[in-house]
């Protein structure tokens, strides 16, 4: 069931049409990318263009007591210098589109600090120079004095009584307290009762470390003012949302602002943002009437672009002795950082609905505190809430299995939703659409070679091999295809979740497809061409996909949350249906037949029972362009557009299994084998799907093993370059064995479920579970992510999670109960 390469479609032949959907089409996008003919934002050069450089705060929390820009203004080739005071009246606030509770506290987010800085890297002054280097050089001539304020970094300390405040204007560092209680919502029974009645309760504290999306293309923005019109090119995932938000923030009328996302080099949620620098570039362009460019350095990117994850999770599971889960209780502390950006508070709230995973819990309660600290804001990072939830449930299921002495897979099987139970409404109120967890698991076990590895694990244990082997599972699902607009409304999200597409039939028969979804590596141009080739029966090569420019794609809600194909692709298919419906009237007229007698297949209308009488849709495009002969009462066009708003999320699922070697003498871990089978619904292009899974796996594994954004006690980011923030290289990652099962999503015309986040969501707990499975018999019950050799070694040799905290009581109990005879035989520093 591994993805195999399909033969190329034979286009343009008269034989029976071969379906494009399902073909491993090579990507149209590649031609420019592999030859360096790309339009990254930073490539843009405009006449008279000036460059912006940003002076950033070196302190995490402080009042600006003096700011002298005199020398910088006089520096050669400097055109202007602005401080927060200069722009205070016009800068507004970076918008937060997700007030998760009615009483959520949002102190506002200036693009440039006026009186006070709240995280290292916050903008305090900007220099506009004739060259990038002139602007950067002049930054060094600016003098700023700060009166230091106490730095708030630890979430639990931040909400303790008497903690210093990040924002003077607030009463506490708690931005919100969000609760979902299944009992109150009517989707489950009373949680406290379930725990009171439980035979077994397992409680754990998990740490979701802070991560950095670290897209390869640094953020960049160019703003060109033309009279009272502005064009902004930005390395963004969200040109449409950015346009609306930037207009609202700056007061520039929306119709006077065009936003373009040209080629964009990755995002992973990190470019799902309205960035302070985008607003500043717009404000400066308005003031000076000149084109402005800003491109960040990598250090600026790691320090100031939003981060992801950063949660402390208290998870309790209730079960009976037979291993039937009864209840789940989650208390979350979520680090907002210093400000609320676009969907900062919403990320943990989105995750709230995924903690029950694929299991039939009867009761569920979720509480989350969003907490301000003096760090850069968190926001979306690949998975956004769902990796955290999946990690928690997949880890606690393993802990419960240990507590019950059950096989972790047997425990999962006992509790997961069976294939004949779909659609299934979960305790969190979500209606899971389709799937078969057993089949995916069987296939993943086969890909892994499970039995042999279990046997090897046994041998290594028995022989006290210094290199131990472990196997870890993650049987996951996620909510994708963001999103049903009404559901988003009920969650207080500031926008809908529909997507828009239009199709333009050109006179020569070529087809332009305009999508409101904005790619940055996903391959929309290829996959959308496949969709349209099938729908309209035109050659794949005759389709051009346009995107990422608000002047071209008039309506759209952009790309995130594995929504592009599910929602955006569906809009394309719906638009194609309308094109066919319009063309049918013309065809009937030209063929002198009744519409009812026409069949449309392979791009041609033919008359039932009249062989030879047919007209291609590409011919109709020319006929209606000429418009010499068409029916009365209709418009001379077969172009069409459609907006698709799904009625439900889609729910990809899969089984991921990691086999991990742990060297107990050095603490080094090595993934021996990784196998996964994902069900993402209909696969339009297997090559693209496989690539998305690979990339997601890399990022999920990186959370487990490599990456962490670390702040020192003063709030300095100590992982501020790629020397310190460990993005895995090819040598750090294993070969992946991937496969698919296909259960179509019933909620959209394609049947797709979404694939962008699957690998990232699923893999992290599989990897950690595998490492723990390797050393649990040595008394290790948890290892804090990332699993650095030092942490693993400490956990093996000294107990605890290898992190900075002492092992907590619940973990210690679990250690005791899991203590196997072999424990202690490794010696070490106990």
């Amino acid at each position, binding site marked *: 069931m591994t993805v195999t390469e399909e033969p190329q479609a034979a286009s343009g032949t008269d034989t029976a049409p071969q379906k494009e959907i399902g073909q491993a089409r090579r990507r149209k996008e590649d031609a420019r990318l592999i*030859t360096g003919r790309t339009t990254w934002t930073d*490539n843009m050069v405009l006449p008279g263009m000036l460059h912006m450089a940003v002076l950033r705060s070196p302190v995490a929390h402080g009042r600006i007591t003096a700011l002298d820009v005199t020398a910088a203004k006089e520096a050669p080739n400097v055109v202007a210098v602005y401080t927060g005071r200069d722009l205070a009246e016009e800068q507004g606030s970076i918008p937060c589109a997700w007030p998760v509770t009615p009483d959520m506290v949002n102190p506002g987010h200036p693009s440039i600090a006026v009186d006070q800085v709240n995280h290292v890297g916050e903008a305090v002054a900007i220099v506009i120079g004739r060259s990038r280097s002139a602007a950067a050089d002049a930054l060094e001539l600016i003098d700023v004095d700060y009166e230091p304020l106490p730095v708030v970094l630890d979430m639990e300390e931040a909400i303790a009584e008497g903690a210093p405040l990040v924002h003077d204007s607030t009463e506490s560092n708690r931005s919100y307290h969000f609760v979902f209680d299944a009992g109150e919502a009517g989707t489950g029974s009373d949680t406290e009762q379930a725990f009171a009645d439980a035979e077994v309760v397992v409680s754990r504290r998990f740490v979701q470390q802070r991560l950095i999306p670290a897209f390869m*293309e640094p953020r960049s923005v160019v703003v060109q003012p033309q009279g009272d019109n502005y064009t902004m090119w930005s390395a963004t995932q969200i040109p449409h949302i950015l346009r609306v938000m930037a207009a609202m923030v700056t007061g520039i009328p929306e119709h006077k602002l065009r936003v373009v996302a040209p080629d964009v080099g990755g995002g992973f949620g990190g470019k799902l943002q309205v960035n302070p620098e985008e607003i500043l570039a717009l404000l400066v362009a308005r003031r000076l009437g000149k084109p402005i460019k800003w491109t960040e350095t990598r250090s600026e990117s790691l320090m100031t672009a939003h981060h992801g994850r950063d949660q402390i999770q208290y998870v309790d599971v209730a079960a009976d002795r037979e291993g039937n889960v009864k209840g789940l209780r989650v208390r979350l502390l979520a680090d907002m950082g210093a400000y609320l950006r676009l969907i900062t508070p919403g990320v943990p709230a989105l995750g709230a609905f995924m903690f029950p995973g694929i299991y039939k819990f009867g009761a569920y309660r979720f509480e989350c505190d969003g907490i301000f600290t003096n760090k850069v804001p968190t926001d979306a990072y690949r998975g956004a809430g769902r990796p955290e939830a999946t990690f928690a449930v997949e880890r606690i299921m393993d802990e419960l299995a240990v507590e019950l002495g059950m096989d972790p897979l047997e425990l999962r099987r006992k509790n997961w939703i069976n294939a004949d139970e779909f659609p299934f409404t979960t305790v969190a109120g979500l209606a899971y659409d389709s799937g078969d967890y057993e089949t995916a698991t069987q296939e993943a076990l086969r890909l892994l070679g499970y039995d042999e590895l279990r046997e090897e694990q046994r041998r290594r244990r028995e022989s006290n091999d210094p290199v131990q082997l472990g196997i870890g599972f993650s049987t996951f699902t996620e909510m994708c295809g963001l999103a049903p607009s009404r559901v988003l409304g009920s969650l207080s999200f500031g926008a809908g979740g529909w997507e828009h597409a239009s199709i333009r039939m050109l006179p020569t028969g070529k087809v332009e497809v305009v999508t409101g979804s904005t790619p940055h590596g*996903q*391959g929309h141009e290829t996959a959308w061409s496949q969709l349209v080739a099938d729908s309209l029966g035109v050659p794949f090569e005759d389709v051009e996909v346009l995107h990422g420019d608000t002047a071209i794609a008039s309506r759209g809600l952009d790309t995130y949350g594995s929504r592009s194909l599910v929602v955006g692709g569906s809009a394309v298919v719906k638009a194609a249906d309308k094109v066919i419906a319009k063309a049918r009237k013309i065809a009937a007229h030209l063929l002198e037949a009744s519409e009812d007698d026409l069949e449309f297949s392979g791009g041609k209308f033919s008359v039932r029972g009249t062989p030879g009488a047919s007209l291609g849709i590409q011919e109709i495009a020319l006929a209606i362009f000429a418009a010499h002969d068409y029916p009365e009462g209709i418009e001379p066009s077969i172009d069409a557009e459609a907006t698709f708003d799904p009625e439900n999320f889609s729910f990809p699922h899969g089984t991921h299994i990691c086999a991990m070697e742990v060297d107990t003498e050095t603490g080094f871990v090595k993934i021996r084998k990784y196998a996964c089978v994902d069900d993402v619904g209909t696969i339009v292009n297997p090559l693209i799907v496989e690539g998305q899974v690979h990339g997601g796996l*890399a990022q999920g594994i990186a959370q487990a093993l490599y990456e962490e954004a670390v702040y020192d006690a003063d709030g300095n980011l100590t992982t501020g*370059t790629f020397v310190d923030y460990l*993005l895995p290289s*090819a*040598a750090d990652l294993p070969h992946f064995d991937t496969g698919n099962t296909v259960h179509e999503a019933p909620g959209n015309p394609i049947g797709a479920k979404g694939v962008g986040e699957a690998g990232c969501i699923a893999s992290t707990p599989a990897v950690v579970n595998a490492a723990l499975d390797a050393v649990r018999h040595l008394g290790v019950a948890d290892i804090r992510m990332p699993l650095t050799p030092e942490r693993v070694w400490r956990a093996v040799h000294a107990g605890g999670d290898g992190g900075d905290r002492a092992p907590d009581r619940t973990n210690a109990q679990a250690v005791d109960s899991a203590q196997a005879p072999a424990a202690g035989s490794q010696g070490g520093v106990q």
Partner: protein
Amino acid sequence: MTSINVRVDGASYSDDVEPRTLLVHYLREQLGKVGTVVGCDTSNCGACTVHLDGQAVKSCTVLAVQADGREVTTIEGLAGGGAPDAALHPVQKAFHEMHGLQCGFCTPGMIMASIDLLNENPSPSETEIREGIEGNLCRCTGYQNIVRAVQQAAGELSGSAGGQA
């Protein structure tokens, strides 16, 4: 300012540059060779990799003046000197065939590093490929299809002598 004479992608350039100008900034800003990109400030990501006298270098770690009198090949000069309809280099073709790229930002550097790898080791093992390109970071692909691409290109290059850049 210092005068330099450089051949880039087959064309000769004479320019005055600041002594501190990095080769990548010279290529991008003075020559308009924007196919070569900057991904970090610490020579970790390799997105800026070009060939200097046939050897891969990270052009953010080379001063423009160090390229004086030498020959630079960028991603734009690989395929027949950059004519739009020129045949692709086997490594470019393999990246396309094996889906070795997604957003494509690391791709120019990744391709230039891969060619250098294959010049030194025409038939690398999977491990040798992974270690050979570890100086180039990709955030999209998880590297598996990049490895496949290099393997495919190795096969094609060894089958057709003289195909290397």
